[in-house]
C-alpha cells in the first residue's frame, strides 16, 4: 500500500459574476489527477504557473475541499474524514509554504509559532513543549535562543527553517513542500535543500515537493510528475524523466531551462514553445497542450489522452500523449501512428 494515493482528483473553482454572484464558469485548477507516493520517497510536482501544482498540495491536505476524486493516506480516506479524524490525520501530514515572510505571524514569537501545533494537539506540559521547541530549532540549524525572537529578526533562509521546524513539531509522516526554496538566494537555497534531505533521512519523511524549478526538482525527487493546465502529462522515476522525456511539454520545459555552463549553452538546441499557457477557466478541447504542441495532429484535438505506461517492462514511466517519444538504446523516435495506450476508453 502506498502512503498517499490520489485518484482522479478534481478541484474546480467557481467563477462568480454579477450582483447575484451567479456561477458563470469554472477554473479547472486540477482536473483528474492520479498519482501515488510511497513511504520515504520524494515526489516532485513540476510545471509552470497555473498548472495546478499548489492546488494539488492543498487539496490533498484538505486545506481546500476537492470537487471530486479521492485521496487516501495510509489507507484512510482523507476526503471523508470527520473534523476530529482530520485532526488526527493532520499530525501526520504537514505543509511548508513558499513565502517565508507571509507564512509566519509577525506578532508571534518563534517559540509560539513552532509550538502552536503542540499546544493545539495538547501535547506535553508547558515545560516539555519549551524543550521540544528548542530541540526542533536545533534540528533545523537554529539555536534555542532564537525562540524568544520575532520573525522580522530573521533572514529569508532562517525563516524557512522556522517554517520547517513548525512542520516537524508533530513528527509527521509526510510533508507537502510548496515551493519551499523559490524565494531564497542560491547559496541559501542549497542550505535548505541539504537540510530537507537530512531531515528526510533522519525522520524517514515522505515529501510531496512542489516547484516550478526543474533543476531543484531533479536534485531532490525520486519520482516526478509534470503538470500542465490541471493534468499530469507525464510521471516517472526522476532519472528517467530527465534523461528520456516522452511528452513534448516535458521536452520543451527541459530544453528551456538555461544551464549554468556557457559551453553547454552554446551547443544546445532549444525548443521554444509559442504562445502562452491558456487560461484554466477555458482549457482547450482535446489534449490541453495541443495548441502549443509542435507534434499536434488531428486526434489531439478530439480528447485528452490518458496516462499510460510506454516504457520498458518494469519502468514506471507514464505519459499522456498520442505521440510520445520512444527510446530504443540511444535512438529517439516519434511514431506517426497514435499511441493506443493513451487513447481514452469510450465512456458508456
Amino acid at each position: 500500500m502506498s502512503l498517499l494515493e490520489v485518484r482522479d482528483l478534481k478541484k474546480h473553482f467557481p467563477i462568480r459574476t454579477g450582483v447575484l454572484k451567479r456561477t458563470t464558469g469554472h477554473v479547472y485548477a486540477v482536473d483528474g489527477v492520479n498519482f501515488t507516493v510511497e513511504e520515504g520517497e520524494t515526489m516532485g510536482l513540476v510545471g509552470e504557473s497555473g498548472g495546478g501544482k499548489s492546488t494539488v498540495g492543498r487539496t490533498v491536505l484538505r486545506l481546500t475541499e476537492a470537487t471530486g476524486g479521492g485521496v487516501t493516506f495510509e489507507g484512510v480516506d482523507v476526503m471523508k474524514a470527520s473534523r476530529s479524524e482530520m485532526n488526527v490525520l493532520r499530525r501526520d501530514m504537514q505543509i511548508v509554504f513558499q513565502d517565508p515572510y507571509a507564512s509566519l505571524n509577525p506578532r508571534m514569537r518563534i517559540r509560539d509559532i513552532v509550538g502552536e501545533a503542540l499546544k493545539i494537539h495538547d501535547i506535553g506540559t508547558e515545560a516539555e513543549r519549551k524543550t521540544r521547541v528548542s530541540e526542533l530549532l536545533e534540528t533545523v540549524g537554529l539555536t534555542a535562543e532564537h525562540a524568544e525572537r520575532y520573525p522580522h529578526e530573521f533572514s529569508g533562509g532562517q525563516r524557512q527553517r522556522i517554517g520547517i521546524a513548525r512542520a516537524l513539531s508533530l513528527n509527521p509522516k509526510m510533508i507537502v513542500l510548496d515551493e519551499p526554496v523559490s524565494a531564497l538566494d542560491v547559496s541559501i537555497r542549497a542550505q535548505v535543500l541539504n537540510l530537507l534531505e537530512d531531515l528526510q533521512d533522519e525522520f524517514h519523511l515522505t515529501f510531496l515537493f512542489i516547484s516550478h524549478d526543474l533543476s531543484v526538482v531533479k536534485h531532490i525527487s525520486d519520482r516526478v510528475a509534470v503538470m500542465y493546465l490541471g493534468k499530469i502529462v507525464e510521471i516517472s522515476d526522476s532519472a528517467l524523466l530527465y534523461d528520456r522525456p516522452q511528452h513534448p511539454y516535458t521536452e520543451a520545459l527541459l530544453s528551456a531551462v538555461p544551464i549554468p555552463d556557457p559551453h553547454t549553452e552554446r551547443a544546445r538546441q532549444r525548443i521554444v514553445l509559442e504562445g502562452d499557457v491558456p487560461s484554466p477557466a477555458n482549457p482547450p478541447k482535446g489534449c490541453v497542450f495541443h495548441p502549443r504542441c509542435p507534434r499536434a495532429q488531428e486526434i489531439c484535438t478530439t480528447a485528452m489522452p490518458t496516462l499510460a505506461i510506454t516504457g520498458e517492462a518494469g519502468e514506471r514511466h507514464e505519459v499522456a500523449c498520442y505521440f510520445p517519444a520512444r527510446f530504443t538504446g540511444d535512438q529517439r523516435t516519434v511514431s506517426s501512428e497514435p499511441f493506443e495506450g493513451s487513447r481514452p476508453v469510450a465512456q458508456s
Partner: protein
Amino acid sequence: MAERLLDIRDLSTHFFTHAGVVKAVNGVSFTLHRGETIGIVGESGSGKTVAAMSLMRLIPDPPGKIVEGKLMLGDRDLRALTDDEMRGVRGNDIAMIFQDPMTSLNPVMKIGKQIAEAIVLHQDKSKSEAWRMAAELLARVGIPDAEKRVDQYPFEFSGGMRQRAMIAMAISCNPDVLIADEPTTALDVTIQAQIIDVMREMQAQFDSGVILITHDLGVIAEISDKVMVMYGGRTVEYGPVDEIFYNAHHPYTWGLLASLPRLDATEKARLTPIKGQPPNLITLPEGCPFTARCPYRRPECRDQWPQSETVGPEHGVNCWIPEDERVALRAELRQFKEPAA
C-alpha cells in the same frame, strides 16, 4: 575595438537611514562597449540593482546618494548633468527593463500610449505617427495582432506579453545602453526562453550595449559576454563569461557555482552551500564583505579591501589569497569544472 558606451569608475551609492548608513554599492567599476552584454550576478542585497539605478540617476534622494564615482556615458559626465538633461538621457540613451512588468506599466493607460509617450518625448514625432510606431514595435517584439493590441490595457496582456511590451518601450528610442533588471525572473521558463530570444534579436538589430542583472547563472551563461560578480556592494570578480565559469578565482564565485542544483547533473551529489547568512549592509567590514562566510579567510581580509588583480585577459579578482594558492584550492573543489576541450 567597439565603441565604448559606458565607463563607470569607483561608483559608491549609500542610503542614509535612521538605522545607519546602508552601503549598498562600494567602489564598483566597469566599462560597456557597443554590442556587448555584461551580466551582473549576485544575491539579494549585493547591490546589483542599486548600481544600475545609480547609472540612471534614479536613486531616491533622500535617503540615497551617489557618494563617489565617475559615470561617463560616451564623453558626457552623467553626474554633472542637470535633472532636465538627465531626463533627455533616460529612455533615449539609456533605457531600462524592470523585473515586474505588472508594476512597471501604468495599469490605467493603454499599452500603445505608454510606448508612444516616450517616442513623442524624445523624438520629434506627431502623436499619430508615434502611435503607428508603437504598433510596429509591438509587432517587432513578437506580439501577434499588434494593431489591435496597442489599444489594450496591461491587464489584458499575459506576463510574457507585458515583458515584450516593456522591451518595445525600451527600444522605442533606439538607446545605446539597455539595462535589464531581472527581466525574466517573474516569468515561467518557457516564456523566459521566448523573452531571451527577443532580447537577443533586439540587441543584434540595434547593436546596443546590454547590462543584464540577474541572480540566475543559467541566464548569465546563455547571453552574457562578460560577467561581474557582486557581493555586499563590491565587485569581487570580473571577466569574460568563460573565465568566470571555468577559471573563476574568487571563493564567492566558487561557492555560487557549487551551490547550484543542476539540470545537467548526471549523478545525485550533495550540494555545497555557502555557510552563514547574507551580510548586513550597515555593518559591513572595511575589507572584504565575504570574509564572514569565506572558508579560506585570512587575518587581513576583514580590515582591508584587496586591489583588483589581473589573472587573465580582462579578468580581474579582488582577493587576498595569493594566486598560486587560489589555483591550488580550486583544483580541490569537486564541483569545479575544467574547461571542455
